[in-house]
């Protein structure tokens, strides 16, 4: 996409998110050709949509398409089951012909089918499951607007769609991690914009609080957190490895929390009220930080991996 196309694409995605609600958002994204864009330019399509989802506190089921595509599933069906909160583990486990499922789906209503990846002995497989045997619970939780459902139970597989080696699941997690990273960045930028506006408008001691260095530096810290995380996410796209995607997700989660803390302090009492939109973004950030592995867990595994290999990989060459 050239700059003009990108601008037009971003504007229509934003329009789809703002002018529709619930499942109608998925329809609107479909109409504007987001799925085709994902095929042609996965990075641009993912970056634009997920950033806007974060910025607007909106939700869609687009993650299903991102994950299906990463797994090479050409005809995605129903909702894609995500690992449970804080985990990168496979959400399914085979027990004979029955699949035990425990995970999350990002859906507005109970889906008719789910796509689930599961462990079968030493193999990793994916299949479609009819959902009448599964239990769904609409997650209210910390961020009721995120549109998550918890799914649990055991169901017979209706169709086996893929039978592959382990790295396949890793690349699905990597794609999801990058998408969620963009959503975290979008939510972080929205928080920074709220805090910046507040700082400029709020008057204390006879002047705008944006004159105070303590306030300015907090906003600068939030900006630094976002910019550094974004640089790593973009580099991870170019690199294409699961290692860098995981690192980018962990770092973005950590930095989003840093940005959130500084912004909340600048917003002070206003930001603590339910009338002010800040809390929506904090809620979203804390939940997203736990999708595809919590930041602390991922960071600890990264360190353990480096200590075990006794070397720092040569990533991101010129």
């Amino acid at each position, binding site marked *: 996409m050239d700059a003009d196309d990108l601008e037009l694409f971003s504007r229509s995605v934003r329009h789809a998110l703002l002018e529709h609600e619930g499942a109608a958002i998925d329809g609107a994204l479909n109409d504007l050709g987001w799925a085709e864009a994902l095929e042609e330019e996965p990075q641009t399509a993912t970056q634009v949509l997920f950033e806007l989802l974060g910025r607007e506190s909106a939700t869609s089921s687009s993650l299903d398409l991102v994950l299906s595509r990463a797994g090479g599933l050409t005809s995605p069906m129903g909702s894609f089951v995500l690992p449970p909160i804080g985990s990168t583990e496979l959400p399914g486990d085979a027990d004979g012909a029955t699949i035990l499922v425990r995970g999350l789906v990002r859906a507005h209503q109970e889906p008719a089918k789910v796509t689930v990846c599961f462990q079968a002995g030493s193999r990793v497989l994916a299949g479609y499951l009819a959902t009448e045997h599964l239990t769904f619970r609409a997650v209210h939780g910390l961020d009721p607007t995120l549109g998550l459902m918890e799914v649990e139970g055991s169901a017979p597989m209706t169709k086996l769609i893929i039978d592959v080696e382990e790295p396949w699941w890793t690349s699905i997690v990597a794609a999801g991690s990058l998408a969620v990273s963009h959503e975290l960045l979008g939510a972080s930028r929205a928080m920074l914009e709220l805090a910046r506006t507040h700082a400029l408008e709020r008057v204390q001691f006879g002047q705008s609080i944006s004159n105070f260095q303590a306030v300015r530096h907090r906003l600068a810290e939030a*900006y630094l957190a976002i*910019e550094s995380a974004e640089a790593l996410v973009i580099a991870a796209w170019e690199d294409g490895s699961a290692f860098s995607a995981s690192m980018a997700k962990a770092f973005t989660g950590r930095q989003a929390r840093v940005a959130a803390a500084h912004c909340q302090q600048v917003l002070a009492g206003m930001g603590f009220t339910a009338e002010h939109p800040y809390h929506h973004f904090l809620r979203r950030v804390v939940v997203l930080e736990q999708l595809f592995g919590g930041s602390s867990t991922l960071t*600890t595994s990264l360190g*353990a991996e480096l200590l075990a290999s006794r070397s720092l990989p040569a990533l991101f060459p010129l």
Partner: protein
Amino acid sequence: MELEEFKPALDAWLDENTALLTPSHTGILTMEDEVSHMAHVRRHLFDAGWTRYGWPERVGGLGGSGLLRAYLGESLMRRDLAEPGIYSMPEVMAPTMIDFARADVALEMVPRLLRGDEVWCQGFSEPSTGSNLGSLSCRAERTEEGWRVNGQKVWTSFAQYAARCVLLTRTGDQASAHRGITALFVDMDTPGITVRPFETMHGLDEFSEVFFDNVLVPFDRTLGEENKGWAVAMDLLPYERSTSLWHKAAFLHRRFDTLLKEVEPGALDPRRVGEVAQLLFAFRSRSRATQLRLASGGHLGAETSVDKVLVATAEQAVFDLVAEGLATQVTTGDDPISHRWRSEFLYSRAATIYGGTAEIQRNIIARRLLDLGSDR
């Protein structure tokens, strides 16, 4: 030459010549060792053509993208053949000469710097002028023979070895602030210049005080226009935060890698290791994007303050980790390797201070990037 062609050719040459370029000193590293090793390395790199790539032909270069310089520095850091501080000095000095010196002066002087015939220094900071560079007071007055300079500079890196100095002087009245500054290119052997190195906590005498007592500088050594020295200083800062930071990223990468090889199992908390790796790779990503933007003709401005904060944060984080993981070497070791770790740890304490403090960078981010209005 294109980068893709440059990379394998350079790497092959460095592989062949590693022994020639490896530091020869034994025992604890001194500044003299570092300076003479650097001159040796520069000489060979220049004669083989490598340091001429990425610089324009009008100063004796062989042309090509600045990415070639970025990669050259990175390759030297990766092989432990150069220290980033001294190695990257030309990345700041040469562009200033190219942009502001008279063409014949630039053509005469820049190759001497690149070939390692000369070391240059940068006379910016003064005892009363740290973060507030616009308040400097080292005076230059017009006389019939040229500029007459009187005053003092401090924190001047490598001044005791330097043949030339890019010097900022006050030519307007003190109230003219940044509008009354003129940049000069001064021969350090001019009568009236006294250099006094002083010790710093990391044990290498990098810095000096420099005194100017009626020092005469010819008018043709003016860099840019009279009273437009601020433009010279501002032009130089983005260079200070682009290619040289990429070199620093490569240096930190190698030192972190060495730490991972030398650390005893169990000495480091994996989570801390992961956090520092993320910071370092985030800095590298940002610096890489800056390099690519510069190479494609982009203008560098206030956004490089982000790069500067990230390098300082990453450097301190890496050496904080070193102080934990290699605690014996850093705290009680007295062999050369321990000395080196300790010196690097101590030097990293200054990363949030030199080249514009962490606070100044945040002021710039607030004013210029977040558009929060003036802070004064």
